[in-house]
């Protein structure tokens, strides 16, 4: 789920944080094309061109096949796993008419209503969600 460990490097101290993709230099190098694509969506004519023919539009960025698939299928977690960053992929969300909250909800596997309700009740507690061990115990 987190960045792939590079052989012979010590495990990153944040690798134990569950349900989280830390966007570090390794991820940034891996996902440059995803994030470069998302940046183009800041301009309205590009958003239109993308919507008109998504697969064709994506050809200009040197994306890997799996990155292209993740974008076309709107696999929000997979995009982050492949080096995308949330502030960039949120621009794809905006192009689809989604708010940050709607994009976030999609990554949790909850319904939009369920997620909004959780937030209104004070959000996801940190209790039981600090480490992978705790998280796995809780989420089976």
């Amino acid at each position, binding site marked *: *789920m987190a960045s792939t460990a590079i052989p012979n490097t010590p495990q990153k*101290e*944040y690798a134990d*944080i*569950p*349900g*989280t*993709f*830390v*966007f*570090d*230099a390794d991820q*940034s190098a891996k*996902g*440059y094309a995803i*994030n*470069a694509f*998302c*940046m183009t*969506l*800041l*301009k*309205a004519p590009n*958003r239109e061109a993308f919507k008109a023919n998504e697969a064709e539009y994506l050809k200009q960025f040197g994306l890997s096949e799996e990155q292209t698939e993740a974008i076309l299928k709107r696999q929000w*977690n997979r995009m*982050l796993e492949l080096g995308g*960053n*949330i*502030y*960039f992929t*949120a*621009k794809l*969300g*905006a*192009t689809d008419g989604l*708010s*940050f*909250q709607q*994009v*976030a*909800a999609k*990554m*949790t*596997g909850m319904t939009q209503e369920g*997620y909004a309700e*959780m*937030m*209104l009740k*004070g*959000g*996801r*507690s*940190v209790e039981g*969600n*600090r*480490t992978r061990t705790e*998280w796995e115990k809780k989420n089976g």
Partner: protein
Amino acid sequence: MAKLVGGICCSHVPAIGAALDNGKTQEPYWTRVFSGFEKSKEWFREMKPDVCIVVFNDHATAFSMDIVPTFALGCAAEFEPADEGWGPRPVPVVQGHPELAAHIAQSVINDEFDLTIVNKMEVDHGLTVPLSLMFGQPDAWPCPVIPLAVNVVLFPPPSGKRCFNLGKAIRKAVESYPEDLRVVIFGTGGMSHQISGPRAGLINSAFDKAFMDSLAGDASYAKDLQHVTYMREAGAEGIEMVMWLVARGAMDAKVEEKYRFYTVPASNTAVGHMILENAG
């Protein structure tokens, strides 16, 4: 000489901007948030700053992954509101203060803080939402603004201690500027939130409270927090809170906490706000 007269800490949630821009401020969900900033508007009317330095982070708007400066000081005469994918916010163009900005750049670089100088930059919600919260919806912002963008997008951001010490250097710079200007510094972002991955939605009010308590005191606990602690305890994006430490570092060792507000949620995020004044 210029004088640093106050420190503002506040969250910069994009949905707050959207609520304002789309006329939703009277909905109960949003009244709860906006009511917490009435006192701040009053404070600003009395304080009448000549310049605000706003420490914020760019959210992949001015800075793509092509170039990622750790600290970038806006030295331009003006900064246009950016289109972040939903169209630009209908807010005034931000007027800069190139003379004071250039002075700060020189002073802090000589103090070994190697800032990036930015002479053209569009500003996103990270900068404009705090201005909207403090000043409402005027035709023009009431004073010039110097943006200081901090990288909190690409890990690692600068440490909290580094941010605090940069604040100290900015204070020294401001107070060596010859014109009589009243300057307020903003530290924005946070509080606890995570908007990415399966753990999205995380909020930790106890952590947020301890952080604010520390800033109201000598900040020693807050400034020594490690990145992994922010991310684990306050969510991956909670790490934005290091920017509050720039504002706190610019204040006296002792501060008077004039006001505090905290509510959960605005969209995905815990909203926190403090007004600090120097107390020696």
